[in-house]
């Protein structure tokens, strides 16, 4: 008879890439219960977004996450442009999609690399990271920024992608695809990966529906809630996309859904690059002032539906609520690891692809004091003491 004891992982732990405290209650090596303790990457983004002009809020909102920066931009712009009645030209819509799909590729490859590292396959980790680096070079070329692309404004984009830029996108994805086909084959056939992923962290379709899961985690349970398909927005209205779905609901299914989504994104990129109107340019001036309005909108981030609820009063944001995909999937984390062997926990947690910095974006007021940030400090991302 084993006694239940607490096994802590984190908040700082070699197997975690972001701070998260897993409290596992184990009997022997079997996890009986799990509690996830958060708050270690908390920055108070929502509070800092309040009382800002809409174009200033856009700068802050796209810095919520370093992996899916463009998807926050798109959710914010979709909502704001929606209730303000701002029409965007096809070129801008497709340019935004190009950056978003490149972001999906880099996010999934980063995730795949880290997942392989968790499985003890560091060579594959390096292979995935090497290919991801090429995508970051494309971001550098297109937007001037490797991480926070910051390429869009209300109603327009900051620059027009040249013919050479689009050619660079296409040649880069061709070179990545060649290698990625081999890596996907390895992932699907490698004994270590199959043993450690198949049948691990199973989530049933019913649970996924009941708990409202989103993104690749839901699609690995045969639920199609891809926002790009169910509610197409911006350039996705012009492109053909089929959701990648699997039925198994385990860690292997989630792995393969993400890898297959990389190929789907490459296809979307080809379509977008071919359809972009060659002679047009992006509008020179963005919409500067939005007096009032409120609405809700979503974009499909690499981890799933990214929801924004925005209210603007007298030209300033009264509330910006962000519901990131990890928060939607968080409720399932303890259930996914219950009954698992303790050695499988890092693999199961990683297969859910948590983005902690995205999720921990809520308001904070410490000791009853509210921090005031100037626009300049907000742009620089630091506060003068």
């Amino acid at each position: 008879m084993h006694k239940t004891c607490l096994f802590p992982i984190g908040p700082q732990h070699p197997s975690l890439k972001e701070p998260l405290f897993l409290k596992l209650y184990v009997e022997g090596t079997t996890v009986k219960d799990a509690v996830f303790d958060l708050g270690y990457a908390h920055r108070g983004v929502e509070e800092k977004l309040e009382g800002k002009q809409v174009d200033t809020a856009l700068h802050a909102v796209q810095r919520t996450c370093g992996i899916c920066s463009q998807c926050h931009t798109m959710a914010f712009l979709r909502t704001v442009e929606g209730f303000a009645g701002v029409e965007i030209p096809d070129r801008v819509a497709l340019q935004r999609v190009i950056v978003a799909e490149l972001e999906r590729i880099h996010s999934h490859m980063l995730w795949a690399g880290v997942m392989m590292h968790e499985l003890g396959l560091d060579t594959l980790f390096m292979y995935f990271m090497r290919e991801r680096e090429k995508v970051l070079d494309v971001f550098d070329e297109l937007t001037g920024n490797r991480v926070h692309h910051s390429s869009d404004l209300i109603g327009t984009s900051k620059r027009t992608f040249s013919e050479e830029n689009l050619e660079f996108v296409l040649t880069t994805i061709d070179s990545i695809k060649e290698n990625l086909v081999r890596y996907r084959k390895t992932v699907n056939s490698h004994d270590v990966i199959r043993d450690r992923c198949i049948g691990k962290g199973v989530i049933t379709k019913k649970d996924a529906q009941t708990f409202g899961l989103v993104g690749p985690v839901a699609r690995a349970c045969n639920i199609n809630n891809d926002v790009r398909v169910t509610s197409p927005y911006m350039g996705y209205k012009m492109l053909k996309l089929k959701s990648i779905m699997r039925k198994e609901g385990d860690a292997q299914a989630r792995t393969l859904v993400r890898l297959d989504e990389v190929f789907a994104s490459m296809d979307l990129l080809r379509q977008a690059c071919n359809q972009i109107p060659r002679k047009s340019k992006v509008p020179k001036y963005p919409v500067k002032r939005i007096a009032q309005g409120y609405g809700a909108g979503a974009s499909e981030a690499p981890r799933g539906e990214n929801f924004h609820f925005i209210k603007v009063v007298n030209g300033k944001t009264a509330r910006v609520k962000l519901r990131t995909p990890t928060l939607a999937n968080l409720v399932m984390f303890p259930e996914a690891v219950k009954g698992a062997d303790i050695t499988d926990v890092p693999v199961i947690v990683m297969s859910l692809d948590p983005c902690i910095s995205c999720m921990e974006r809520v308001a904070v007021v410490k000791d009853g004091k509210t921090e005031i940030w100037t626009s300049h400090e907000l742009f620089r991302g630091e506060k003068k003491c």
Partner: protein
Amino acid sequence: MKKIIPQFKKTKSERLVSISYLKEEEGVFIYYHFANKTPKFREIKIEIGNEKEVESIISIHPNAAILEGEVTEMYGIKFPGNPYSGKRIFLEEK
């Protein structure tokens, strides 16, 4: 306690996306956003006035647990029956 369950009975087939607290000039509101088969989100806006307790909807939407817990933590509105109501999710313990 503000009773709200009857207004949510028809939302069972929809997916709860978000719960947002918002203090406006007209009063204090909680917005519930739902996704269904249409491209737009459906919202249910509940005015809570000075109420500090609101009925939890986890019996209809189990994923409301963390979303309601977040509102409790940030704005002090309690949702009796929610296991996360009163627990710390993001902020440091006092």
